């Protein structure tokens, strides 16, 4: 086999694929063939690089050049300029927003500088559809080590010592979970990988499965060995076709190599994995609901105990871990618990993957050590707030989390600090908001999501969240009263206190945290009938500055409801009773005469 001198890595994550990255791969291959270089340069489709803001990403190896926002047409330029002539294609390089300089090497990009990639170690580096690449990065060695050198209890002990906690949201110690499952004896036990990622905007788990599916398979087998299970199930949402594809390929390859199946690596240990598809219900991320869904029952949670470790899938002891949690396992086994628990804070070890989104320059997938501050994430990795606007809040933990403010910027991020601050780690959504975000509307957005996704089993979540949402709507329409604010707080507190499952219990967090941190803004909505961010339409009124208006009639001609009246060359006025606050007039006014009050 010819030895390639150069590797071109093209991101094949869902986001970059949507921006034609597959076409880039085809074009690169075609141009290389045309130049007779197909044996010198290898083109590889990888998983997500994380820097989705600037996708599709193409990375040139070994000189480590990082091209951003590449189009299929750029393939020819890359081959002819970079590969043949050795010149960097400067217009495809990342531009540092701080100083407008091109950065060619990802190592020197602010986005990557503070990241430590454990769960994402192979994402954007290997071809996820080629098990050999995984093996050459040490894939399945941790499994081999467990099977040949460690007893199941040693494996559990190692995971316990590592301090790893569940990455799906709850933060339950993983080693302890395994231990409980291992101690319940049964003829059959199950290992379940929870790949029902449901937070709006979150795609951590999807990226891991798309970029490094073998790490999940390996970790599930390790878990199976540790707890005494021979069957693994991946509960994955059907909306993740690429991840499903890659997992299926990976499972097939692992079986062919004998890394799944009977007598793995001559150890006598049997393990195999099946996929189960979910229809994308948020609540099915809750482990009991997930198990019911897998059993073909209505996807709704049941009261714990009994925990799945005692009575789970088909009534058998079942260990459920999230994708990212599993992705950490092989590294912990290989490098040791001591190595792992040096990263992070006292009670939260290791790293956490976040999906960074919102009004921030560098949107994407990041993996950072626990204990990093929000400031570092937002300003250094995230590159600060878009368009030079001011930071207002950051929402972590998705619909179960809360909004944190400036005063939390220097709080080290870990499970306990986030809960103390009224939010939670959740599965890793992080939405950054600037001054144009209305906190009442943000709370309402999350509540609408919860209402949509509630299973409807318990009263507080089924009716309570609906009422919360209705009260927020009332407030955003300017019909709220101070009594509503007190009732809002009471109801939110009761829901938190009484809901059946973790999702219900955390669903009022967006309301409670915004009430705590942005009380003044709520009061403005109900007392002054004002929305300072200019989001709540009912609380806005448009006004034409009589001094600035020259009477050009552009606004009046473009008003869809005829709310603007005025003589030519005379200042115009808006009939607020008719105005629908669409903003068309502001867009048309060349004189800056129309403003929102």
């Amino acid at each position, binding site marked *: 086999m010819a030895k390639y001198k150069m590797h071109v890595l093209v991101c094949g994550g869902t986001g970059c694929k949507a921006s034609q990255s597959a076409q880039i791969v085809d074009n690169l291959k075609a141009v290389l063939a045309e130049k007779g270089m197909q044996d010198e340069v290898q083109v590889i489709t990888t998983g997500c690089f994380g820097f989705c803001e600037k996708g599709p990403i193409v990375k040139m190896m070994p000189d480590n050049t990082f091209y951003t926002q590449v189009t299929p047409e750029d393939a020819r330029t890359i081959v002819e300029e970079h590969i043949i002539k050795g010149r960097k294609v400067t217009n495809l390089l990342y531009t540092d927003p701080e100083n407008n300089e091109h950065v060619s090497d990802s190592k020197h990009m602010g986005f990557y500088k503070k990241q430590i990639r454990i769960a994402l170690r192979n994402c954007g580096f290997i071809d996820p559809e080629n098990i050999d690449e995984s093996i050459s990065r040490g894939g399945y060695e941790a499994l081999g080590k467990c099977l040949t050198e460690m007893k199941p209890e040693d494996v559990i002990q190692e995971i316990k010592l590592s301090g790893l906690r569940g990455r799906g949201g709850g933060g339950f110690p993983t080693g302890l979970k395994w231990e409980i499952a291992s101690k319940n004896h049964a003829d059959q036990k199950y290992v379940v990988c929870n790949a029902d990622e449901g937070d709006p905007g979150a795609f951590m788990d999807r990226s891991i499965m798309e970029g490094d599916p073998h790490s999940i398979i390996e970790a599930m087998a390790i878990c199976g060995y540790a707890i005494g299970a021979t069957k693994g199930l991946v509960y994955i949402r059907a909306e993740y076709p690429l991840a499903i594809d890659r997992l299926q390929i990976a499972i097939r390859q692992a079986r062919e190599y004998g890394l799944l199946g009977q007598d793995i690596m001559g150890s006598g240990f049997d393990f195999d994995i099946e996929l189960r598809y979910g229809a994308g*219900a948020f609540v099915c991320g809750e482990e009991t609901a997930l198990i019911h869904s897998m059993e073909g029952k*209505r996807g*709704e949670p*049941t*009261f714990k*105990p009994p925990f799945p470790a005692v009575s789970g899938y088909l009534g058998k002891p079942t260990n459920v871990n999230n994708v990212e949690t599993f992705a950490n396992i092989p590294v912990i086994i290989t490098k040791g618990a001591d190595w792992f628990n040096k990263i992070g804070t006292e009670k939260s070890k290791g790293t956490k993957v976040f999906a960074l989104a919102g009004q921030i320059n560098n949107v994407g997938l990041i993996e950072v050590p626990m204990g990093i501050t929000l400031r570092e994430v937002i300003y250094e990795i995230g590159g600060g707030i878009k368009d030079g606007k001011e930071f207002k809040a950051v929402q972590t933990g998705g619909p179960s989390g809360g909004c944190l403010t400036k005063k939390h910027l220097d709080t080290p991020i870990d499970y306990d600090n986030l809960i103390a601050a009224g939010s939670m780690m959740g599965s890793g959504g992080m939405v950054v908001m600037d001054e144009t975000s209305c906190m009442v509307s943000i709370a309402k957005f999350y509540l609408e999501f919860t*209402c*949509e*996704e*509630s*299973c*409807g*089993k*318990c*009263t*507080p*979540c*089924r*009716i*309570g*969240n*609906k*009422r919360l949402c*209705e009260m927020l709507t009332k407030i955003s329409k300017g019909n709220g009263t101070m009594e509503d604010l007190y*009732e809002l707080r*009471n*109801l939110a507190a*009761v829901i*938190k*206190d*009484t*809901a*059946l499952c973790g999702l219900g*219990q955390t669903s009022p967090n967006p309301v409670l945290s915004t009430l705590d941190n942005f009380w003044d803004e709520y009061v403005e909505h109900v007392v002054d009938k004002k929305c300072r961010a200019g989001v709540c339409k009912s609380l806005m009124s448009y006004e034409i500055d009589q001094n600035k208006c020259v009477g050009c009639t552009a606004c009046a001609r473009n008003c869809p409801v005829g709310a603007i009246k005025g003589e030519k060359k005379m200042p115009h006025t808006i009939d607020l009773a008719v105005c629908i606050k669409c903003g068309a007039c502001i867009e048309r006014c060349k004189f800056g005469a129309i403003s929102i009050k």
Partner: protein
Amino acid sequence: MVKLTIDNKPVEVAEGTTILKAARQAGINIPTLCYFELDGMKFENKPGGCRVCVVEVEGRKNLAPACATDVMEGMVVHTHSARVINARKTVVELILSDHPNDCLQCSKSGDCELQTLAQKLGIREIPFKGEQSTYKKDSTLSVERDMDKCIMCRRCETMCNKIQSVGALSAVNRGFEAVVSPAFDQPLSESSCINCGQCVQVCPVGALSLVDNVADVMKAIADPTKTVVVQTAPAVRVALGEEFGMEPGSIVTGKMAAALRRLGFNYVFDTDWSADLTIMEEGTELLGRIGKVLGGDKTAKLPIFTSCCPGWVSFYEKNFPDMLEYPSTAKSPQQMFGAVAKNYFAEKIGVKREDMVVVSIMPCLAKKSEAAREEFKVNGNPDVDFSLSTRELAHMIKQCNLNLNDMPDEDFDSPLGESTGAAVIFGATGGVMEAAVRTAYEVFTKKKLDNIDFEVLRGFDGVKTATVDFAGTPINVAVVYGLNNARIIMEEVRDGNPRGFHAVEVMACPGGCIGGAGQPYHHGDSSIIRKRMEATYREDAGKPIRKSHENPSIIAIYKEYFGEPCGHKSHELLHTHYFDRSKKVEKE
């Protein structure tokens, strides 16, 4: 044993006890709503959904549902702290905020668990205004659904799926739109529902109720051209008293007959009479089949299944269409009575069929659907015109300013009013089988049965089996209630009847007809059903004649009219046939 403190009271209970039960043992009653248990009948519904039973457990971050949380050593529980009361009230206010609150017109008013709870918590206004769920009303011939009132306790679902294995009702949709419904939002009448009505019996509110036929009956009574005949089922007389404040288990046979007469029924007869007739037919059929099978006739099937329970009949027609030749072809006592009344008796008193109205008083809701079956009509005129439940009869008595307590004891009219102890016990699980054995034994062996109390066939077990020695011939019988138990036996029979059953009694409802869906609401108190059962056997023991074939009125009608059991005339009037009512899934 686990020691804990509830409301500052030290309590010691067995490990695995819930906080709710531990509190009850200590005399502390934590309110519940969705929680429902029929003690001893394997019916337990504790989804932990309503959150009314939440209590404060020291050291726990949120409130705990008492119904689903097991006690732990040293636990300190507060069931009425300010935090608990606020949460409990808020939860009930939330439920009421999505409830029609039309208590004055609601059929469940006075019997409604939500109403009682709201009253107890002193809820005077609902702080939450917002959208209310609205669903279209739906009805079968027996059950009415008004899902606007549904509180998602899921008791009906548990009953329908776990106990009855009917699978007609389950939760559909998500969040605020979540509701209990047949699949694909089809009408209940087109679903797999068999009208047993147990969903109605357990519904805490007025979401599920019976189809009320009182007005129809009142109208018939008021019509001077109609002769209105009433029959009362065995289980009614041991439960009706509860509606008038009497102790459960009070026997009101005589008072009931008196009340019916005062309501204006022209003839007050007894379904017990036709229960004796049923034993004659069914017992003879059983012996006939055993004879055929012993004689090598491959077309004769054993075991014979009883066919008195219309919920059960619908169930096997829908689920076991390949086994329609197993159940007895004998009509149920209600339908035998109707056929006899509208033929033999109408002729006897010279009333035209169209001018006779037969009303039945039943512990059952499925009887309403049974009465409407096409095969029980002659030229569109049904053998039984209206079937009223025990609860409807109570309402009717109250509506007419009567009080059952004030009624004298009166007898049924003749000739269709005379009955034996064997007929009385039809109301309890195992009763039909015991009655059949009392007769079949003597007919088969031509010997007198000394001990006619078959204790092994009595009691609350969902499945009972016994072998009765018919003078050297062992007869294997089984008695089940709850249709999931029946399903298991049916599947066993389909797989070759390994236990060699000759006869199986099936009743759909818990404890048999005494736990029927038309009976006064028991609200989960199984001791009420037990007391009805005790009363049933007490009534039997007090009867001078306790074997159906010794009922002089039955003997007389065979002599006068039918000739012999399973003869030509009885096949015409007293037997029926079954239909495949399964839903075929068409393959594309």
